[in-house]
């Protein structure tokens, strides 16, 4: 696509948006709810197409994509979407009204997608549409499939709404196209912190930038989750959180903290995690690793193997040949994370020290899987919230966020809204 074509497409979208806004907002929300029902239904043709096309495009295995979508879209239902609309926007009539606190969307929204996991892309495309802001989306280079399928599904459900979403394909180094795309009235962008910083310089007010930078997730297990059947359940859940999407998402845990347990608990946890990851490798095999990622994986595994010979307590389970790795560490210091099913087990004496250990990561914390803290669990949760975690859940549920999850700690739809407060005479 050329820069000129992008500008033309934005102009067409503005016109389509103007037509859409002549309809009651409820109709648009109902159509979007139907779209989500299609995507959350494993038997819908759209889901089947995505399950079929995504593995080839992204390198994830078919099994992983199927399970990832089943869990990730389970809570993306139409009814939930309508509840979200009511919770965040109030009465949808505010989008049509001419009095009181009125709501509008932007004339156009550019959505710059990143990564290869479909659920965040789906939501990023639908959120501006809930405000009746037409969307021009640049698909992620690692996932050329999802955005186009979502756009097709919307057009299938509601052709007029379908004219309010278009796809802009251009190379990541095509600056002219990027600048043309960023002339949209609102820009929603996902990407590395460096990419977001670069985009921020190009999107000046009054245009709005809704940015999502890099985030990471972790797990923290208290003493009650570090023994007996609870340990197996927690380890199984965390292993699933690690294995789904091959640890590529911001909700993939990179490390598990064993908090306040006996000295052998980290060993038990590492062993249980290793067993669970080995089982999952049979059920949900890891996908293709790009060569640079494979190099990182081996480098960290071999480094752990060497440290294990010198530092009592350090242990490497698995490795490059097994296609997963668990490293039992002896401290809570943050360490490199090569992803692709590489997880560290790190001991920490008590919840206060856990929070201290996480403080350097606070600005980038997304989700924490939490279990086994008994009566102090609320305190730990509060501490993690104060640090900046935007999601706390049970092990095994990290990859199934609710539709209304406050990603980046902010609402889902409201960032795309413009308010006009019409006052009555005093």
């Amino acid at each position, binding site marked *: 696509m050329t820069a000129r074509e992008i500008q033309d497409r934005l102009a067409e979208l503005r016109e389509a948006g103007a037509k859409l806004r002549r309809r009651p907002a409820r109709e648009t929300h109902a159509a979007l709810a139907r779209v989500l029902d299609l995507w959350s239904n494993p038997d819908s043709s759209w889901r089947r197409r995505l399950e079929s096309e995504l593995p080839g495009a992204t390198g994830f295995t078919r099994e992983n994509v199927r399970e990832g979508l089943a869990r990730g879209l389970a809570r993306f239902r139409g009814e939930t979407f309508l509840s979200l609309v009511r919770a965040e926007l109030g009465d949808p009539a505010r989008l049509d009204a001419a009095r009181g606190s009125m709501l509008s969307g932007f004339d156009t929204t550019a959505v710059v997608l990143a990564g290869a996991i479909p659920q965040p892309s789906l939501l990023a495309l639908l959120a501006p549409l809930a405000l009746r802001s037409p969307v021009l989306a640049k698909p992620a280079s690692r996932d050329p499939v999802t955005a186009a399928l979502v756009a097709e599904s919307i057009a299938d459900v509601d052709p007029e709404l379908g004219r309010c979403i278009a796809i802009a394909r251009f190379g990541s180094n095509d600056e002219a196209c990027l600048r043309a795309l960023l002339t949209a009235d609102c820009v929603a962008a996902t990407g590395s912190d460096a990419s977001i910083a670069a985009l921020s310089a190009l999107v000046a007010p009054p245009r709005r930038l809704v940015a999502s930078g890099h985030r990471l997730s972790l797990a923290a297990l208290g003493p009650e989750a570090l023994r007996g059947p609870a340990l197996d359940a927690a380890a199984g859940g965390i292993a699933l959180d690690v294995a789904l999407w091959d640890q590529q998402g911001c909700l993939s845990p990179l490390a598990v903290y064993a908090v306040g347990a006996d000295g052998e608990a980290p060993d038990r946890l590492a062993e249980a995690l290793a067993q669970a990851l080995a089982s999952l490798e049979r059920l949900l095999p890891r996908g293709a690793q790009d060569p640079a990622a494979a190099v990182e994986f081996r*480098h960290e595994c*071999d480094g752990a193997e*060497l*440290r294990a010979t010198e530092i009592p307590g350090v242990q490497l389970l698995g490795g490059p040949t097994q296609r997963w790795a668990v490293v039992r560490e002896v401290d809570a210091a943050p360490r490199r994370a090569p992803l692709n099913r590489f997880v560290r087990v790190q001991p920490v004496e008590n919840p206060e020290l856990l929070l201290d250990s996480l403080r350097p990561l606070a600005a980038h914390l997304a989700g924490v899987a939490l279990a086994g803290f008994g009566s102090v669990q609320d305190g730990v949760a509060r501490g993690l919230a104060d640090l900046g975690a935007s999601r706390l859940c049970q092990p095994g549920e990290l990859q199934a966020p609710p539709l209304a999850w406050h990603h980046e700690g902010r609402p889902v739809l409201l960032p795309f809204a413009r308010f006009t407060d019409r006052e009555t005479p005093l």
Partner: protein
Amino acid sequence: MTPGADPARSELDARVLAWMREPEWRDDAARFEALALELFAFQWERCLPYRRFCERRGVRPATLTRWQEIPAVPTGAFKELELRSFPAQRSAHVFRTSGTSTSVRGALHLDTLELYEASLLPSFARHLLPELAAGERAPILVLAPSPAEVTDSSLSHMFGVLLRELGTPESGCFLRGGELKPDELLAATLRAAASSGPLVLCGTAFAFVFLLDELARRGLSLVLPPGARIMETGGFKGRSRELGREALYAEIETRLGVPAARIVNQYGMTELGSQFYDSVLRLPGEPRRKLGPPWTRVKLIDPATGDPVSGHEAGQIVVIDLANTGSVLALQTADLGRRVAGGFDVLGREPGAEARGCSIAADELLSQAGA
């Protein structure tokens, strides 16, 4: 032999030094094999962490028959372990890897700099100043801090040795206190134009970006004298805007007047005693690739299996460097490479290249956090 020195080590050092000091490089496979196996046996005895690592893999000197079988230590291990083949009390120098003020930096402990210096000089001269006769000097302008300012940087130390052994009086370092000194550099360049020997401008990739940005800000070009050449090394690591190598070289040609054919990338690292250089100046017209001295070997392995890759397949770079007598001779890097015409190329991730997931920056975040 210095008092208290390990006789076995001194004997190995002497043999490696003799090779480094020969006027002509000879790629002697049998000599390399013999020295590599003997050095491995020595380090297996003297460096306990390395010995345990090898034993875990079932490798002992008696079981080894080829240098290719020597277990390689990941460079990242230097962050947490002291990998030296001499007693701690003989440690005389520590070179540290680059990093932020809060991050853990790798440390290479050395009891002598003799091999390091003996290795770097002929490599640099051969690839950057191939036309220089023995005893001749050239102006060497460095975009990096001096070794006096940054005592634990192997790169600064290398530049210091080059200035001392090969540089003319106008040579010097033009990055001080974290700041580039463009006016001083300009003055030195003008003086160098009148000097004998081709000018060499050396520095890290990010220092070149600083220079290019400064010249752009002033609306200037600094056209270097004919025959000038550039040596750049290292990455950007968030210290400047990132540029792909081709884009960097294009900007260098525009602002400094040095074409890509005279820009030599150096591949080296703190943990290595020897360096590898692009072939372009030494072998003009041939494919650009990295070449090393005969006392090194590069092996490319499949990161999934650890087995050597075949042909021109990409693989993880493993370096065997006989200059590393005091630490460990076999190092596994975190870099990906490919064989090219008897040398190799380092395959980097292009700036802006998109990773599969949003978690990919975790390394960067963890590095900032002190990992």
